[in-house]
């Protein structure tokens, strides 16, 4: 009876140790990207006001001075871009078939230690956004804190054709 109890205890302990062991692999998604939504301000002659409408266009998006293209000639009304994790600004080129604009975003970075396996997560707080004015009319910060992926943080307003 005593021996049986020992075996049960040994087996239980080994199971617990087995469950507790960690292979050092990070299983958390620490990706944080800035969400961008495209709009046009359309004048409504009946009401005499400007209405914000979702704008879809064929875009090529990439970081300035970066060879890697994020989106290539895709029909987009919104997209996500990665901000620089170690610098407080990032610039992106938004290219349509006829023109090209560069968006500049200034922000602060916050590094949060997640775990030894995963390292740090870098989140951003948007301070300022500007743009060249070609096809794009203006940009506006919609949500300052870029802490997750899947939200819209920046609105881009295109000229009405």
């Amino acid at each position, binding site marked *: 009876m005593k021996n049986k109890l020992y075996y049960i205890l040994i087996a239980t302990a080994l199971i617990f140790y087995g469950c507790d062991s960690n292979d050092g692999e990070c299983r958390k998604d620490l990706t944080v990207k800035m969400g961008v939504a495209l709009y046009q301000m359309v004048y409504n002659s009946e009401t005499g006001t400007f209405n914000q409408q979702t704008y879809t266009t064929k875009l090529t998006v990439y970081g300035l001075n970066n060879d890697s293209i994020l989106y290539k000639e895709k029909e987009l009304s919104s997209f996500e871009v990665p901000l620089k994790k170690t610098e407080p600004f990032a610039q992106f080129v938004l290219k349509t078939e006829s023109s090209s604009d560069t968006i500049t975003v200034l922000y602060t970075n916050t590094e949060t*230690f997640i775990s030894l396996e995963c390292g740090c997560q870098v989140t951003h707080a948007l301070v300022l956004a500007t743009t060249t004015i070609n096809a794009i009319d203006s940009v506006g910060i919609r949500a300052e804190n870029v802490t997750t992926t899947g939200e819209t943080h920046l609105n881009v307003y295109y000229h009405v054709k």
Partner: protein
Amino acid sequence: MLNKQLTYCLIVIASLCVSLTVCAEDKATGKEKAKSEKKDTIFRGISAHIDIASPLMGYVTDHGIRTLEGCIDVNLLHRFFPIVEVGYGQADKAMDNGSHYTVNAPFTRIGLNLNLLNQRQNEDRTKGVKSYAFLGVRYGMSFVNYSVDNVRIVDEYWQLEKTLSYHKDFAYAGWAEIVGGIRVDLVKGFTMGWSIRYKMLLHSNISNKNEMWYVPGYGKSDGSVFDFNYTIGYTFRTNNTK
């Protein structure tokens, strides 16, 4: 005349027998009382044990973790076993991503084990406890100097990289444990025990407790922990429990 003398002799012998019996009974009762009183002392023994599972499992599982711990418990009424556990733990762990964690710290736990077996022999006495199953609680604490080095922030798209380090002296962690196990008598006072523990981290004085990857005496700080101890040691027993 002879009959009278014989009758007197018989009466005297009978009286002696009765008085001896009564005396013997009195003595026996006295001994019983003394024994009973002796058995009713609160303190019944003290045990000193060293854990051999922690260093062994640290070596087997290759976590870069080394722990050495021991405990002293006191037997009160064969039922309650107040216990103090002390130890020293160190971790030196490098992850695949390059992060490196080091910690060296002593720890201590205080608590109580409750003997689950019925030790009552009759109304007045309890049996001597040598082997028993127990359930217990602990409060553990550790003051830790830790450092996390070479935490890399890699920005794949922009091809940027940065390395961070975190260091803290006198970081404090406190935790609670629920313990279940057995203590078994081996030979001539030598005893051994098994125990399984469930640990919950209660509090610490650092804002981001994730930085403290491993707390000596507790384990990895990212959640509750199951742990296992196999102890071996010596039990000094009072005379009435031998």
